[in-house]
């Protein structure tokens, strides 16, 4: 007992001593731990609140108010696809150069974005479908698309031009202005937070969902949500905290304790918010949820985030921006292809796509099987999500005790077995809500318990892969890594659209009430889960080839530190002003 007391005392003294300055060999003072708890907590909570708003079929706003056909989202995805490919190339190039392009190229890129915006605005102001013969095959094809007509198709197409141009131009402008001061992860908060708050309010108050004609409702909603998506409020402070130290031990400590504690804010909100929503007249279907509850919650979280954002630092060993490696387009492309671990992750993702398009099973279980709302819903959600907390606190131990390969193989197998049990329960005793529900909840509880350590390991490994890429190519090339998605695109797009069509066959379209029919609900949930189970088993195979260990990572970090140190020294010798670098 006295030993424990002594340890606590020592910890207290350690925290007091290194409150403002880190201990030797470490990089993060304890004061910053406190800032991580509150800052990341607020940012995470805000980003989680935004998950209630989205242009997808399972969003409550879309589900209860817009009532858009399920397949329309796939149709819009296809309309946006060609331009998406082209703009992605420019986007990667800009992002992985942190917005710093040669002057001539910068002008060209701005021009391209400007033209896109002009075209986008013109499609919204004018109806381009009138330029075509209304009886032509092209126009009749567009008219036949689910939830669309030719006019809506052109306007949706143009909206994506407007969105891409607008987002692209902002991307260069704000990166150049803000990254030297705030770093590469959290800069976006400073330029996006105010417009995001305004858009969150507008989403609830603009009565676009009252438009009678479904095709008009689709394109106007698409325009509204595209504008909303121009401004981000991602969980960037947590991204920043994942790179808070070059010391692996310290990274994991921050990830396992302050970051984990920071999620408590969201856990509390996850209980309180549904209770508040449950008190509304029409609960989840009540528009006041989007007019009052979501905006007030989000704006409060955003205010706390901005207050603490400046105090959380990223510490990636890197040369100053003035002397950073300039990534040419093809170097970026070939650079990521050299990264073996990105390739393994790609194969895992490809297999994971077997479950693409399935409906959120847990949400359906809560709302359509158990008809939960208010406090019972909150408590159940909180109970399940709490299941992951105790094991996560032991993450540092598990990460020392087991290799990444072992952890990930265990993770995939536990998913496969868990989902197989759930599928069996729903298929064989779906009529007995109490028995089926109890089995599902128990399995979900165990699956959550076994999820958090692999998730922490996965997050940490993604940072390490970035470090390794930086060692390989001189930059992290996080954007160029998107090229892997292009290679796997044919398969994922093929597989990912099979499930929505299967769901349509079982009756799922824009009316979610079909899930009240036991037989339809069973088919809609169970069949995609079975496909997913097969995927989880297969996903163990690529991890057998994973060999990136702590020793290699530590050596990579040494190389990065040395590069930063030498480059900064040379820059100073040349009399060049330096900003944004970190020597570790």
């Amino acid at each position, binding site marked *: 007992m006295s030993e424990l007391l002594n340890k606590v005392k020592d910890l207290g003294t350690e925290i007091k001593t290194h409150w403002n300055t880190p201990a030797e060999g470490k990089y993060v003072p304890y004061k910053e731990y406190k800032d991580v708890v509150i800052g990341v907590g607020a940012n995470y909570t805000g980003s989680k609140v935004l998950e209630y708003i989205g242009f997808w079929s399972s969003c409550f706003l879309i589900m209860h108010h817009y009532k858009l056909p399920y397949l329309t989202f796939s149709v819009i995805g296809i309309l946006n696809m060609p331009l998406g*490919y082209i703009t992605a190339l420019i986007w990667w190039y800009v992002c992985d150069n942190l917005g710093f392009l040669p002057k001539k190229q910068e002008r060209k890129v701005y021009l391209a974005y400007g033209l896109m915006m002009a075209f986008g605005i013109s499609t919204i102001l004018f109806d381009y479908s009138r330029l075509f013969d209304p009886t032509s095959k092209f126009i009749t094809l567009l008219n036949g698309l689910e939830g669309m007509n030719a006019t809506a198709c052109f306007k949706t197409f143009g909206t994506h031009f407007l969105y891409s141009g607008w987002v692209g131009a902002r991307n260069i402008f704000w990166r150049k202005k803000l990254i030297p001061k705030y770093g590469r992860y959290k800069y976006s908060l400073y330029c996006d937070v105010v417009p995001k708050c305004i858009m969150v309010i507008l989403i609830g108050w603009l009565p676009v969902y009252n438009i009678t004609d479904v095709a008009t409702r689709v394109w106007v909603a698409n325009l509204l949500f595209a504008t909303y998506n121009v401004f981000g409020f991602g969980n960037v402070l947590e991204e920043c905290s994942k790179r808070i130290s070059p010391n692996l031990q310290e990274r994991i400590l921050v990830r396992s304790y302050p970051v984990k504690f920071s999620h408590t804010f969201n856990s509390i909100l996850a209980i309180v918010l549904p209770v508040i929503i449950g008190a509304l007249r029409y609960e989840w279907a009540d528009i006041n949820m989007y007019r009052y509850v979501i905006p007030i919650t989000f704006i409060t979280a955003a205010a706390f985030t901005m207050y603490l954002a400046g105090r959380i630092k990223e510490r990636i060993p890197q040369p100053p921006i003035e002397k950073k490696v300039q990534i040419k387009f093809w170097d970026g492309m*070939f650079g990521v292809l050299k990264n073996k671990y990105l390739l393994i992750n790609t194969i895992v993702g490809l297999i994971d796509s077997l479950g693409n398009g399935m409906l959120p099973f847990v949400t359906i279980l809560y709302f359509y099987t158990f008809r939960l709302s208010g406090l*019972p819903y909150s408590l159940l959600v909180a109970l399940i999500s709490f299941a992951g907390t105790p094991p996560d606190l032991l993450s540092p131990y598990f990460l020392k005790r087991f290799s990444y390969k072992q952890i990930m193989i265990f993770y995939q197998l536990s998913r496969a077995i868990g989902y197989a049990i759930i599928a069996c329960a729903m298929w064989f005793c779906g009529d007995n809500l109490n028995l089926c529900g109890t089995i599902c909840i128990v399995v979900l509880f165990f699956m959550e318990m076994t999820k958090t350590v692999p998730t922490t390991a996965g997050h940490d490994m993604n940072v390490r892969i970035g470090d390794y890429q930086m060692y*390989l190519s001189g930059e992290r090339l996080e954007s160029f890594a998107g090229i892997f998605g292009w290679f796997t695109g044919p398969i994922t797009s093929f597989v990912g659209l099979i499930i929505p069509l299967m769901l349509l066959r079982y009756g799922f379209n824009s009316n979610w009430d079909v899930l009240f029919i036991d037989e339809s609900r069973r088919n809609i949930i169970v069949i995609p889960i079975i496909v997913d189970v097969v995927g989880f088993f297969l996903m163990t195979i690529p991890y057998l080839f994973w060999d990136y260990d702590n020793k290699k990572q530590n050596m990579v970090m040494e190389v990065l530190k040395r590069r930063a140190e030498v480059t900064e020294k040379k820059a100073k010798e040349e009399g060049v002003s330096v900003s944004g670098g970190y020597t570790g």
Partner: protein
Amino acid sequence: MSKKEKKIAPLQEDIHLDIPEDEIWTYQVPGLAAPHINKPYKYYGLKKVIFTLVIIVAVSLSMYFSVRTVQSDTFEYSEIETGIQFDKFSNTGFITELDIDYITEVVYDENNADPNTNFTLKKDTSKPITAIRQYALNCDEKVKVINIGADVLEIDGKSFYSCWALQRIEVDENNPNYCDIDGVLYNKDKTEIICVPTDRDTYLAEKYGYAEYDEFGYRIEPAVEDENYAEYERDVLTYVIPSTVKTVGELCFNYANMTTVYIPEGLQTIETLGFYEIPRLANIYSYVPVNEVTDTHFTSQEALGEYYLSLPEGLKYIGSDAFTQCQALTYMYVPSSVTFIGHHAFWDTCYKQDKQVMGVNVINVGASEEEFKSVETGDSWRPQYDFLLFKKSVDINYSSEREIFAFATPDENK
């Protein structure tokens, strides 16, 4: 170091690499690939060409598969044992009347610019449709009338799911298995009512001369305080289920705009979601038919004979979610003949307003508590209301006497 200590080695090792300043961009960590920074690649041009070609093929395939998968044919059919099944219909956006036939093509008239009329549906009469699959029409917003021919032998109760504009289902009088009564689908001997079109009230409003529309095309209903509201409610918002009917089919009345329904004594089964989400349904009456009643339009109380409140004596089966979200109901009597009540049968039929439990705030049961134990009931079959942040089921009033009329019927209103 012991085996256990080896296994839990610290993540951070003290490693020092002696890297000369001129090798910082080329130094290779043992076991990892060598860095490649600002150096030319071997066969650079060839690699670029191969890479570009692979990407173009991949992207093209992605787009092809995506387009193929969402581009559905307007009409889809499949062959089954009894003939041809109508599987799926995706509206072109302008089809408002649909014949259940084998359509081979939508032919457009190039000289007609009006998209509402510039097409015809080309039929192949040598391939008669014999069955309509479940969800063949799903969430269609345009089709108003469906015409079912003489050859259709099987129709699933869920075939015309959530057809928001559907006003009438017309069945050929020579059809051996099905018929319609004023646009409502029945089986041939009228023992089962299968589907009441969701927008049937618009058809009735037009038929009886109440149809008025605003500038956006929404139908304007007479207000409750209007002089002609009682007639409107009788002609448009009231439905009399014929005396021959024994079963209300699955999803039969879902989303109907009606306030009153007359159910014949003799009805035995209300299937799953039979009266799902009819927010204005305030009055359920059961009548004791003396003569056969076939007219679904309410004319007078005399025509129906003796009648009473709520579900009919003789009813045996109440399916799951049978009355879910019928929040205008205020009285529910479960006769002692009932042997099965599905889960959530009366879900969301009560709610709290000004601290009062409104809607169906008690379930009256004809059977005694002891007798009711033999009734098979699903989970949460009783309505529930908010109670101290949780939900509480309403009470059951066992051995209850059926209430006599507490409010005026449409006939009395008149």
